[in-house]
Each structure stands twice: as structure tokens, then as C-alpha cells.
């Protein structure tokens, strides 16, 4: 079987699943071309409900209005992230702005998905078919959005506990620097040297007790978080 697979690979250049995917993709595209009808792009009853209109509007509105807007927002975020990095003296395990980008994406996606329900679109049909009134926005939706905003605010206020011991870790395999440059993992000696350098750099201006500046720890006040933060503080450079 593996002999057959190897022969197929030699002949075709990739796994059979690749061929299957390609055939499926081309079949679908071919089917669309076969059944395509220019009339389908235009709705004579409501011009603004035409596929053609939405396509052109999306190109104009997205590429010329939305894209510059969120590119600008991301640029501003980049400036904030740079400041954050400088304050923290070292790279984060997760790039700082992703703490804003990802919650924004998640809450934007859910907002878009559940928007028809929020504005009660089609509520007449809903009540005609079920005998129930169109539901109000479920509470969890509001809670989820508040949660994502909270996450971003925490990040903007200062370093989190999870990120604080990040400076020695950036050289670890899988860390951001290792991943982005694609270099081989550094040797242990180099790692230690880097760690010493970082620690000297970090420790010199501050007294020993404050070396991690765990803002989240002071914010939270929970025993578990405090313990973790204390342990991290002890472990570092120690």
C-alpha cells in the first residue's frame, strides 16, 4: 500500500487527497460556469438586492472605506503595542496587539452573525410560524461583548501576569522570535547568555521586589493569581 502511495507520489507529485481536492474544486467551478446565468446577478424587482450591486458595492465600500479605516486602527494599535513593549523591555510571547485584534474579531463575527436577531429582522414571519414573539437580545450576547472589551482594556492598562516572564522565553523553540526568523533553536549556552543579558537589563533599574511589575496581579487580588505571580517573580533570573 505504501509502495503504491510512493509510486503515486512520484508520478503525481503529491498525496492522492491533493488530487481529490483539486478535482472537487474544479468540478464545483465547472458546475457554476455550466449553470451560470447573467440574469441571476440582477434582481429586477429590487435593484439593491442584486448580486452585481452587492459585489460592486463591496469592492468600493470595503476596499476604499472599510479597509483604510481598520488598517489605520491597526496602525494606531501598533504604536500602542510598541510603547507597551518598551515599557516591558522585551518581547511578548503573544504580540501585544493580538490581545485587541482577536477579541475584536471574535465579537465582530458574533455581532455580524446574530445581527438579524438583534434588530428582529423577520420577526413577523417568526411569530406567524411559531406563535412566539421575536426574542429580545439574549443576555449572554451583551455579556460576551462586555467581556471582550474588558480583555482589551486589561491589556491596554499594563502587562498581564501570563506575559510577564516572557523575556527569557522568547528564545524557546516555538517562541515568537524562533518562529518568525525560522532559525534553528539557540544552543543552551546562547540561551543562558541571552537570559543573563535580559535579566541584567531588566533588573538594573528596579529593586528586586518589583522586577515583574504584575499589574494583573495587583488588579485581581485572587489568591491563585497572586501565588502564580509570586512564583514567577522568584523563578525569574533567580
Amino acid at each position, binding site marked *: 500500500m505504501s509502495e503504491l502511495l510512493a509510486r503515486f507520489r512520484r508520478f503525481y507529485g503529491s498525496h492522492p487527497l491533493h488530487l481529490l481536492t483539486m478535482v472537487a474544486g474544479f468540478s464545483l467551478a465547472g458546475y457554476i460556469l455550466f449553470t451560470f446565468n447573467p440574469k441571476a446577478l440582477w434582481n429586477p424587482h429590487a435593484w439593491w438586492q442584486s448580486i452585481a450591486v452587492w459585489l460592486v458595492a463591496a469592492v468600493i465600500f470595503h476596499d476604499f472605506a472599510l479597509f483604510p479605516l481598520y488598517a489605520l486602527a491597526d496602525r494606531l494599535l501598533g504604536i500602542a503595542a510598541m510603547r507597551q513593549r518598551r515599557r516591558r523591555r522585551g518581547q511578548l510571547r503573544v504580540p501585544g496587539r493580538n490581545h485587541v485584534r482577536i477579541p475584536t474579531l471574535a465579537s465582530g463575527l*458574533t455581532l455580524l452573525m446574530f445581527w438579524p436577531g438583534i434588530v428582529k429582522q423577520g420577526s413577523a414571519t417568526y411569530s406567524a410560524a411559531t406563535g412566539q414573539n421575536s*426574542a429580545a437580545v439574549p443576555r449572554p450576547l451583551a455579556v460576551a461583548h462586555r467581556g471582550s472589551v474588558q480583555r482589551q482594556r486589561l491589556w491596554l492598562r499594563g502587562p498581564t501576569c501570563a506575559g510577564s516572564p516572557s523575556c527569557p522565553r522568547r528564545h524557546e523553540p516555538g517562541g515568537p522570535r524562533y518562529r518568525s526568523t525560522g532559525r534553528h533553536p539557540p544552543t543552551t549556552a546562547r540561551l543562558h547568555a541571552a537570559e543573563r543579558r535580559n535579566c541584567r537589563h531588566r533588573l538594573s533599574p528596579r529593586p528586586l521586589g518589583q522586577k515583574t511589575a504584575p499589574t494583573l496581579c495587583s488588579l485581581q487580588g485572587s489568591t491563585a493569581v497572586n501565588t502564580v505571580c509570586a512564583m514567577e517573580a522568584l523563578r525569574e533570573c533567580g
Partner: protein
Amino acid sequence: MSRRGVLALVGGSALGVAVLTAGQTIGGITRQTVLFLPRGRTHNDGPDDFPINKTAAAAGIDLAAIGSAWRLTLTGGSGPVLLDRAALAAMPQHTARLPIGCVQGWSTTQTWSGVRLADLAAAAGVRAPLSARVQSLQKIADNRIGDYSHAVLQANQVLDRDAMLALRVNGVDLSLDHGYPARIIVPALPGVHNTKWVSSIDFQAR
């Protein structure tokens, strides 16, 4: 953001959307994962608490037509037979636990009781019906979804021992939205053909 990060983000988003929506289809306890949509709602308390696919209001049911003036008209025999609800209730009652499988995607199994369609055919004077055309009071829909104000039942559906014109469900009279004064319930018949608010049944003799 690294390429791996983008892939993880897209994959994670797709997974999240699946968790937030799939419970609607799977049902049961997974329905609780559909955080942002209504769930665990009841239709009304008591024996009528199961779904419908059209309200009496949406079907344009005239309350005067289903009150004391309501009569079931049976045709196909030598002459039309008119029965009021009391007369139907006086006939032999049959009880069966049967499902409604709705084209909307839900199904529900309830205990129905009413008069067997075979008995109604006999009352109309049709011994061996070939088919039966059931007419509802609901207004005729002129939309693309189709007109379900009437349905035609075949001989095997009329003569099935559980096929009936239901007057009651779970021990109480049908509610208005469930088809009061009477509705059709036939085993293994799509929900839309279990006609509600029945006004007449026309039996075709063999």
C-alpha cells in the same frame, strides 16, 4: 501575525461558530451551547406545549367560523353529511401516540384522540374510499411556499387504523394554534399535510 497564527485564528473562529450554532440542529443538551439564540422556551404551559408551524392568526382563521357555527362537512356519499363538534365527540374515539414531522426541521410526538378517518368515511356513506380531499378553513396562500389549505390522502392513509380526525391532544381539546376544532393526524405523513382547522372531507369512492 504568523501564518500559523492566521490559520489557527480562522480555524478557531470556524470552530467557535460551530459550537454556537450546531446545537440548534443536534438538539438535546447541546442546545445550551447556542448562547446567543433563544433556547429553552416553551410554547405555553400544559398539554399544548409543543411546536407549530403556523398560528391561527397567520392562517387567517375567522373565530366566528370555528365557534358554535362550525360544522364538518363529509361528502362523497349519497348526500353531504354535516356534523358538529358534539356529534364528532359522540362517535367512537380512538387514541394514538403519533409524531408530527415538520418540513421546518423539528418533530414532536404527542398523544392524539379523535375519530378514525375510516369511521368518517363510513359515516359519509363511502365503504371503500379511494382517496380523501381534506379542506381547511385556513386562507389560501398565494405565495411561493405553496398552498396547504387542502391535502389529498390516499386510500391506505384514510384506512390506517391510527389515521384520525383529532379533536383532543394529551387529554385536552386542541388549542386554536394546534387546529381547533379538528385536525388530521395520519402516521408517517409530513406535518404540512396533517391539515388543521378542517372544514370538510370529500371521500372519493372506488
